[in-house]
C-alpha cells in the first residue's frame, strides 16, 4: 500500500521556547510516504510544536529534521499546513484566499483563479467564492482553508486540530471530507488532535505523546483507518478504548475530550 521511503524524520530533536523549559527532548520519529499519522496527547505536550517544526516554522535547538531526505531550514512549498484557527485573510474573498498559495508562487491571475474556483466547487463552496471569511460559517471557513492548502498540491499535509473549533455535526462532515481527500488513504499527512475518535478515524498510525518531554511516546498501528465500514465497527471501538487507556495511564495526560 505504501512504499517505505521516509517523507519526514526527526532525529534527537530538542526544542524549548525562549526562556522556557524544553517541550521536546531528544525526540526521534519517522514517517513513511503515504502514511497518515494522528498525534494525540495532553495540552502542552509539544504536539503543536512538533507540527511547527515539521512545517519549518520553528527550528529545533538541536537534532535533525529532514523532509523528503533534505534537512529543513524554513517553510517548504511541498508542505501544506492547516491550522485550527483557519488563518484565512479577512480582506481576501474565498477565491482569493484559496488562490493565495498559487499567487505567492507567481501563477498568472487567470490560472490561479480558475484553479481556486475548481477547489471551491469540489469542496461544495462554489457559490461562496466572492464572500469574505467574515461572511462564512466556521465550517465553511475551514473548508476554504483546506482548499487553500490543497490547491498548492502539497506532498505532506500538516493539520493542527483542524476541526476542534467546530460544532459536532460540522466536525463530522469535515472528518469525512478528510477521508475523501485521501487522509488515511494514501495521502501523507500528520494530524494533531485531542479527539480520540478523530485520531482513530484518520490515523493509520497513532502517536500518543506523554505529558512532558521525558515521558515516553507510544505508537499504535491502525491498519483499519480509511477502510469503508471501519468507523463505528468493533475494531474501531476497541482501538479507541486502547488509545484512551494509554492516555489515562498518566492522569495528567487525560485528553480533554
Amino acid at each position, binding site marked *: 500500500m505504501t512504499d517505505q521511503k521516509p517523507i519526514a524524520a526527526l532525529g534527537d530533536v530538542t526544542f524549548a521556547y525562549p526562556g522556557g523549559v524544553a517541550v521536546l527532548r531528544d525526540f526521534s520519529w519517522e514517517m513513511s510516504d503515504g502514511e497518515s499519522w494522528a498525534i494525540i496527547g495532553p495540552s502542552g505536550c509539544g504536539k503543536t510544536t512538533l507540527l*511547527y517544526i515539521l*512545517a*519549518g*516554522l520553528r527550528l529545533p535547538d538541536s537534532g535533525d529534521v529532514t523532509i523528503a531526505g533534505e534537512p529543513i531550514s524554513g*517553510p517548504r*512549498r511541498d*508542505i*501544506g*499546513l492547516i*491550522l485550527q*484557527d*483557519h*488563518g*484565512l*485573510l*479577512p*480582506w*481576501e474573498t474565498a477565491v482569493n484566499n484559496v488562490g*493565495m*498559495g498559487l*499567487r*505567492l*508562487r507567481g501563477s498568472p491571475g487567470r490560472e490561479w483563479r480558475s484553479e481556486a474556483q475548481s477547489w471551491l466547487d469540489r469542496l461544495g463552496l462554489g457559490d461562496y467564492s466572492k464572500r*469574505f*471569511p*467574515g*461572511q462564512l460559517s466556521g465550517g465553511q471557513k475551514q473548508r476554504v*482553508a483546506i482548499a*487553500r*492548502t490543497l490547491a*498548492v498540491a502539497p506532498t505532506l499535509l500538516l493539520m493542527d486540530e483542524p476541526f476542534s473549533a467546530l460544532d459536532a455535526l460540522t466536525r463530522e462532515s469535515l472528518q469525512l471530507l478528510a477521508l475523501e481527500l485521501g487522509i488515511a488513504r494514501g495521502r501523507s499527512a500528520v494530524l494533531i488532535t485531542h479527539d480520540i475518535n478523530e485520531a482513530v478515524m484518520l490515523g493509520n498510525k497513532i502517536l500518543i505523546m506523554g505529558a512532558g518531554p521525558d515521558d515516553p511516546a507510544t505508537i499504535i498501528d491502525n491498519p483499519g483507518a480509511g477502510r469503508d465500514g471501519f468507523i463505528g465497527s468493533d475494531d474501531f471501538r476497541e482501538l479507541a478504548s486502547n488509545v484512551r487507556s494509554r492516555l489515562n495511564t498518566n492522569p495528567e495526560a487525560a485528553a480533554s475530550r
Partner: protein
Amino acid sequence: MNESALGRLRSRATTLGGGIVAVLAGLFVWQVVSWIVNSNILPGPVPVSLTFVEQLDEGLLGHAAVSAYRVVLAIAISIAIAAPLGLILGTNARLYTLSAPIIYLSYPIPKIVALPVILLLLGLGDASKVTMIALILFFQILILVRDEVRTVRPELVLSVRSLGANRLQLLRFVFMPASLPGLFTALRVSTGVSIAVLFFVESFGTRQGLGYYILVESWGRLAYEEMYAGVIAMALLGLGVYYAVDGIERRLTRWNRDDR
C-alpha cells in the same frame, strides 16, 4: 443579498435625509441670528449664497483649487512616508522598542510649534505650508498604522508563511491590508485639524488659497459677504476631503464592514 442592498439604500437615504435636515436647521439659525444682529458683519444666508456663486467665477474657485491641492498633496506625502514607516515599526519588534519612546514623547507636542523652524528651512512658499500639514498627519498615520499592524493574529502570518510567502509578500498580502483601517481612521480624525492648519498657514506668504481669500482679501477689506462665502468654501473643502477619505475607505475595506 437583495435585502441587504435595500437596507444599505435605506440607511443611506436616512443619512442623506438627516444631512438635509441639519443643513436646513443651520441655515434657519443663521438667518434668525442675522435678523437679530441686524448688521453688515453678519449677512444672512441668502445674500451670502448669492455672493458665493458670484465669487466662484471671480477667483474663489481658483483659491479653493489651490487649497485643495495643498491639503491633498500633504495627505499624499504623509501617507507615502508614514504608512511604510508604520508597517516597518509594527512588524519589527526591535525597531518598535527603539522608536516607541521617541514617538511617545513627540506625539503630544503640538506640531504647529514647529512652524517657525519649517518657515526658516523651507521659506514662505508652498513647501512649508504643505510640510506643516503633512507633519501633523504624519504622526497620526504612523501610530495608527503601527498599532493596527501589531494586532494581526500570529495564525495569519504563520498560515501565509507556510504557503511560501517571503517577507515582502507578507507585507503586501498581510500587513498592508491589515493596516488600512488604521490608516483611514488616522485620516478621518485628522482631516479637521489639517484644514484648520491650512487656513492658518494660508494667511501669510501667499496670494492664493482660501485662507488668504478669507483673511486678507475679504476680512481685511471689510467685505463681509465675500468673507462668509470663503468660509463656506472652506467648509465644503473639509467636507469634500472627509467624504473622499470615507468613500475610498469603503471601497478598499469592504471586508471590514461585515461582521467578522
